[in-house]
């Protein structure tokens, strides 16, 4: 079997990418969207709280509502979504093998592939929390699924480790469902979650947030019976004597998300250690020609609105490539991280002979900073772009744009690298 474009993953990223490919001239029959779940929508289907779509649609939607909009758009575009189809492997020459109850075990080749597999939650093992291994330790997303989709509670007295958004949202959800959330503890001196979630999910419910704290022990043989929390020093090591033990039956972990890149690795696509996603250019094309990545599989986004935006870029680029409309690059610039910047997307800019539009660079900072200037400098130290901000935090994505003129100038000067950095003012 052969398709012009295969999109792996039918979450917000995959749907937006496919819709954008159709908008940019690809026929919907030439596109195949493969989704392993029984319905499209991705992780949004279990996020029944409001707060999605403020940027994209200018109104507050729930997760399923936001997904619904894109499912409708996909239908209107004439796209079909193959559900219950789990992709098992991808090769560097774009052969996709998937399995489903309806079609069996199938290998299909493609001219272009868009990776949109989302991410998974970090687990206890990755953190190496010692202790016994009783029932009652869940990632926040698993708990969210039990509560919102199965109608069950994962426990009644809860300690939450990690203040990522999903953890914060689950603190509120579990409380509303009648559980007692004893505290949220966070290893870092700041929360990784959005400021609005700290207010709406913790403060409004009097749930304490302990920064610079971690879990040092889990008690209980069959089921969690206690969780011990301790303060940590600046090297994030527990400070002896600061332990507090909570009598509880559940530990929820909200300790980060990891892009789901096993297929990507299998295809030999190079992965950026900082994002845990593929290295991409401004079109979200990986280092393998015709393989694109977008959404949480590329880097973890805090808002789905930005996922849709990024996916549209990938969808358009894939369509243009398939239709032979891509202007070849005459020069490549690699994007470096400077002081205070953890990673950037894209990591590379491929500049065509006549750049037609600006390139927006997204990035995350390494720590909380007040009063800063965000800059892009070229290899000779010339500042190309700058923007002042009163505060930045690792939990919120930043961006800067390079104008068409700057791109031209970089290409003309054969500039090899540019650096995104932060200056304290």
């Amino acid at each position: 079997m052969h398709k012009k474009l295969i999109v792996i993953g039918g979450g917000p990223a995959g749907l937006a990418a496919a819709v954008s490919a159709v908008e940019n001239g690809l026929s919907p029959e030439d596109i195949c969207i493969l989704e392993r779940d029984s319905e499209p929508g991705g992780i949004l289907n279990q996020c029944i709280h409001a707060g999605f779509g403020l940027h994209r649609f200018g109104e507050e939607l729930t997760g399923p509502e936001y997904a619904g909009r894109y499912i409708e758009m996909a239908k209107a575009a004439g796209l079909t979504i193959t559900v219950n189809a789990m992709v098992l492997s991808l090769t560097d020459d774009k052969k996709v093998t998937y399995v489903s109850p309806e079609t069996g075990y199938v290998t299909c080749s493609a001219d272009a592939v868009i990776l949109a597999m989302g991410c998974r939650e970090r687990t206890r093992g990755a953190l190496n929390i010692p202790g016994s291994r009783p029932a009652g330790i869940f990632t926040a997303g698993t708990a969210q699924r039990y509560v919102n989709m199965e109608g069950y509670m994962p426990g009644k007295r809860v300690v939450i480790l990690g203040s990522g958004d999903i953890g914060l949202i689950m603190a509120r959800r579990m409380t509303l469902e009648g559980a007692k959330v004893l505290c949220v503890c966070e290893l870092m001196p700041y929360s990784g979650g959005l400021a609005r979630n700290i207010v709406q999910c913790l403060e409004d419910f009097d749930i304490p947030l302990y920064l610079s704290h971690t879990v040092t022990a889990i008690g209980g043989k069959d089921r969690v019976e206690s969780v011990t929390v301790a303060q940590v020093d600046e090297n994030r090591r527990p400070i002896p004597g600061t332990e507090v033990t909570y009598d509880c039956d559940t530990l929820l972990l909200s300790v980060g998300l990891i892009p789901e890149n096993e297929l990507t690795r299998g295809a030999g696509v190079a992965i950026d250690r900082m994002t845990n996603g593929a290295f991409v250019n401004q079109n979200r094309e990986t280092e393998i020609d015709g393989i694109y990545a977008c959404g949480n599989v590329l880097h973890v986004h805090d808002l789905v609105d930005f996922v849709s935006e990024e996916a549209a870029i990938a969808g358009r680029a894939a369509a243009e490539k398939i239709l032979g409309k891509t202007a070849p690059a005459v020069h490549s610039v690699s994007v470096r991280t400077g002081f205070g910047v953890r990673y950037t997307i894209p990591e590379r800019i491929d500049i065509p002979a006549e750049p037609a539009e600006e390139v927006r660079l997204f990035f995350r900072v390494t720590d909380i900073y007040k009063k800063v200037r965000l800059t892009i400098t070229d290899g000779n130290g010339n500042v190309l772009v700058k923007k002042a901000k009163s505060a930045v935090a690792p939990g919120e994505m930043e961006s800067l744009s390079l104008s068409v003129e700057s791109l031209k100038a970089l290409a003309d000067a054969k500039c090899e690298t540019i650096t995104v950095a932060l200056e304290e003012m």
Partner: protein
Amino acid sequence: MIYDVLIIGAGVTGVMTARYLSGKTCSVAVCEAGCDVAMGATRANSAIVHAGYDAKPGTLKARLNVRGNKLMKEIAKELGVECKAVGSHVVGFGEEDAKHLKELYERGIANGVPDLRIIGQDELRAMEPNISAEATMSLWAPSAAITCPYGLTIAAAECAATNGVDFYLNFKVTDSSHAGGIYYITNGQQTIAARYVVNCAGVHSAEVAEILGEHDFPIYIQPRRGEYIVMDKTCGKMANSTLFVVPSSKGKGILVSPTVDGNLLIGPNAYAIDDADDTQTTQPGLSEITEGALRLMPCVDTRNAITSFSGVRPTPNIYDFYIKNSEQLPGVVHAVGVESPGFASGPATAEYIAELLTDAGLQFTDKDNFIPTRRADGNPKLFRDMTDEEKNAAIRENPSYGKIICRCETVTEGDILNALNSPIPAVTLDMQKSRNRSGMGRCQGGFCSPRVVAIIAEHENYGLENVTKRGGGSWLVVPKNTKGGDKE
């Protein structure tokens, strides 16, 4: 019903004995305190089918280990379970260790271990490119193998059940009586009657001996815990064979070993503990094994750890295994203090226990219809182990094989239902996990556990709240409408 033989404890010792006897003309039952077989030391150990150079010549340990090594590979083949003879190195660092390696080599030769050799640094480095630059030599034992100790034990138990052995799970022996040549063994609610009793209760075997009625039982067991870290599959190829350091008075030391599933295992340490069932892991323990592993292999990076676990050794107050007919209780055989290499010895221990039962008066002959596989129709294959054609055929016949439930380990709904329909139905999350690895991959069940729980509940026709992690009080969820936070 009065069984000929009741086996207490479904670890490798009890299960191999059950499988062995299931090929004979006698009726057999096994009772086990846990919700599954292989819940004791057999679940959590180094998974090495030792070659047999460790034990002192002339001991039971030495004899059963060397024979067990051979039989284990045969049985694994019959049961369709992987048992890979990757070999083992006891790695020496300098002159001091050379003496010890020589000693081990001579023991091995006396014990009848095949193909043992002491090799130099160059050969060692060629075989194990990631070994520490300070390693100077090793004792190479090509017959040492790795397997999945609980997977093999589960398969052997299913085979025993297929051949008519009754398994009583969640049956913790608390009391017993003896009258008219029959033992009545109870868990307080249910009683099993049998003419012969085999005590294979692992770390609790000395207690069970007393429950059975032994006075002044000579063996005392000190539980000793060993902790491990499991590393991601990306590290699985860092070691080609099992790497030990030279054993000291404290034990065999920290090893680095590939696992049959393609992960890398590091551990164990050894600490005496009071509570024999306390399988927690500790921060100092995990640091200790990390350091130990780094000594053998400096490139080990614990950022690739996916989980940690620990197992408890039933260390007796004597050097050897204590496997004997009771002196006080006619028809009772004890298998006590079966610590390492107890797993490797399992199949040979089973033969030996059968001999002891014969000595005690049990009579049997070979059954002519013994089925050596897990099911009457052979050994079921997991979806991920099938060829492409088999995969397609399986999905055509049963579409549930086309539905991936655990995406990290590629476990399908068909695999999960198959484990539910087995002779020992897998009705808990951990039972499923140990049969098909669902929930054991990178995401550690984050994605699949709610789905596996739902499949079990639907198959068993009850609510999700009845599904546990591993029996007892290990509940997972409660229905939403129950009032929470009631302790305040």
